[in-house]
């Protein structure tokens, strides 16, 4: 019985982290899937969200900035707003760059954030990180606290998913598609391409910050290592590519599926003989790369590819044949 209870808790944590990754992947989907922005600095915006929310909610501590003890709703919104402001500033400088240059610029920016978090010890406690971060519902008895947090995450994913589905099918989504298809024509059609790009970038970064905030509260601890590019940038990209870029359902599916693989690979790697065990970290990365390779052979566009609803004719199709 106790063993099953353990499995049960494991499943909850699996779903919770999967949900948090789904938020990240949906954020990236706005940027890459809808707008075509190659953001490789996900970890940076994730970190901003995590630290802002952590600092705003923790009890006073001599080790880091804090003691504001704000309610969660305020800290989550603040995390997103701070991220939006920084995204705006980054976007002003970088969004004119073409795809590959934008990628390089965002890698650099994420690294700058990480170094700031590591070195500005007065605010972030440096490499030792911020601990004792409060967690929503933690006063409830086990397992209800875990279940409630999971419900919060799933509800968030669901709301974001619905909002993005509406956006994707809307005139806004149509303009986004048009810009990706043919930027010159989109400009000739009177669209302010830079503004639309900026919107996509900012919205995506806000979701990444929210995911960062959730992670900080979920783990009750955040340090600069939690924002390393492997787990927060690379993994998110794999999730989106596997699930299907420009498809919200694909993004969510990819997040849960790849998180399960990633998490299971930890168990698998722990069963390895001792001489291999020290290499588990590398084996897991290899495994993810391997899954990606196999998968892309079979589904080059991801598991679910982009679907946009085309408008139906209000009149009868073919109503006037050419002479």
């Amino acid at each position, binding site marked *: 019985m106790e063993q099953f209870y353990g499995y049960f808790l494991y499943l909850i944590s699996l779903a919770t982290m999967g949900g948090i990754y789904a938020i990240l992947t949906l954020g990236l989907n706005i940027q890459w899937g809808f707008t075509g922005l190659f953001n490789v600095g996900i970890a940076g915006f994730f970190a901003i969200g995590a630290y802002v929310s952590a600092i705003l909610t923790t009890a006073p501590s001599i080790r880091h900035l804090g003691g504001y003890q704000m309610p969660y709703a305020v800290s989550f919104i603040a995390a997103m707003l701070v991220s939006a402001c920084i995204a705006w500033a980054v976007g002003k400088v970088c969004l004119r760059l073409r795809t590959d240059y934008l990628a390089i610029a965002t890698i650099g920016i994420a690294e700058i954030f990480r170094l700031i978090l590591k070195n500005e010890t007065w605010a972030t406690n440096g490499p030792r990180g911020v601990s004792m971060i409060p967690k929503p519902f933690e006063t409830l008895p086990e397992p209800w606290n875990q279940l409630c947090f999971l419900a919060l995450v799933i509800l968030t994913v669901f709301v974001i998913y619905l*909002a993005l589905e*509406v*956006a994707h099918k*809307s*005139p*806004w989504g*149509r*303009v986004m*598609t*048009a810009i990706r*298809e*043919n930027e*010159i*024509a*989109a*400009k*000739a*059609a*009177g*669209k*302010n*391409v830079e503004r639309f790009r900026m*919107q996509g970038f900012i*919205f995506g970064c806000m979701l990444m910050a929210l995911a960062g905030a959730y992670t900080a509260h979920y783990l009750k601890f955040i340090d600069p290592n939690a924002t390393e590019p492997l787990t927060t940038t690379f993994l998110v990209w794999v999730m989106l590519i596997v699930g299907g870029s420009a498809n919200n359902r694909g993004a969510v599916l990819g997040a849960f599926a790849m998180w399960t693989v990633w998490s299971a690979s930890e168990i698998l790697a722990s069963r390895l003989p001792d001489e291999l065990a020290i290499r588990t970290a590398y084996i897991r990365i290899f495994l993810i790369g391997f899954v990606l390779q196999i998968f892309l052979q079979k589904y080059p566009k991801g598991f679910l590819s982009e679907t*946009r609803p*085309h*408008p139906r*004719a*209000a*009149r009868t*199709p*073919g*109503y*006037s*044949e*050419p*002479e």
Partner: protein
Amino acid sequence: MLTIKNLNKNFGGLQAVRNCSFEIQEGSITGLIGPNGAGKTTTFNMIAGEERPTSGRIMFEGQEISGLPTYEMFHRGIVRTFQIPHEFSKMTVLENLMVVPPEQPGESIIKNWIARGAVMRREKEIQERAEESLEFLSISHLWNQEAGNLSGGQKKLLELGRTMMADAKLVLLDEPGAGVNPTLLMKIRDMIARLRSDRGYTFCVIEHDMDMIASLCDPVIVMAEGTVLTQGNMNDIRSNPEVLEAYLGGGEVQ
């Protein structure tokens, strides 16, 4: 309506347009002709806001507009087409037109969440207008095709359709007849004439087909080596020795 004064555009050492000045009268169909490399398209690009003039002024309806971005020009009523068609290839023909009209509140992401009603109402108007435009262009049977699958001529019509979806005042057509068969060419010509009389658009047309220019455009502006060589009606231009020289290096325009 549109006045260009001493317009210059340099690309590095190359002077694409130099000291170019002309005027487009409201309600006219002004032809813009000249040999390849005369700076016609560069001039268009500057009027449409895709390129910034190196120096000089562009005045539209009495206001200085040189150097404004494309979307700003669009909202003032200057719309252009391209020599090589630019379509949204994975979108349907109908969507290609529906994406154009301004003042769709649904182009703000947030209004799609909080003001569905207004978005859908405008969407209905836009679709109505797009379907009318497709009928006008007689390509309504293609409404549900992906634009990338259209023939060259059909893409040209789609380009024209895009200008019909904007609230255009001045339409810049960059070789609407290039690579188009003679029958369709005549149709396009008639459409341009009808758009002028029915909707009051002013046109400026770059074209190499002299019959089309002769039957459609008055006045005609001739550009050569980045500047205006002469202008007037087609008969004057045909007999102007300078034009012959520029076009053919001597000889005769048919």
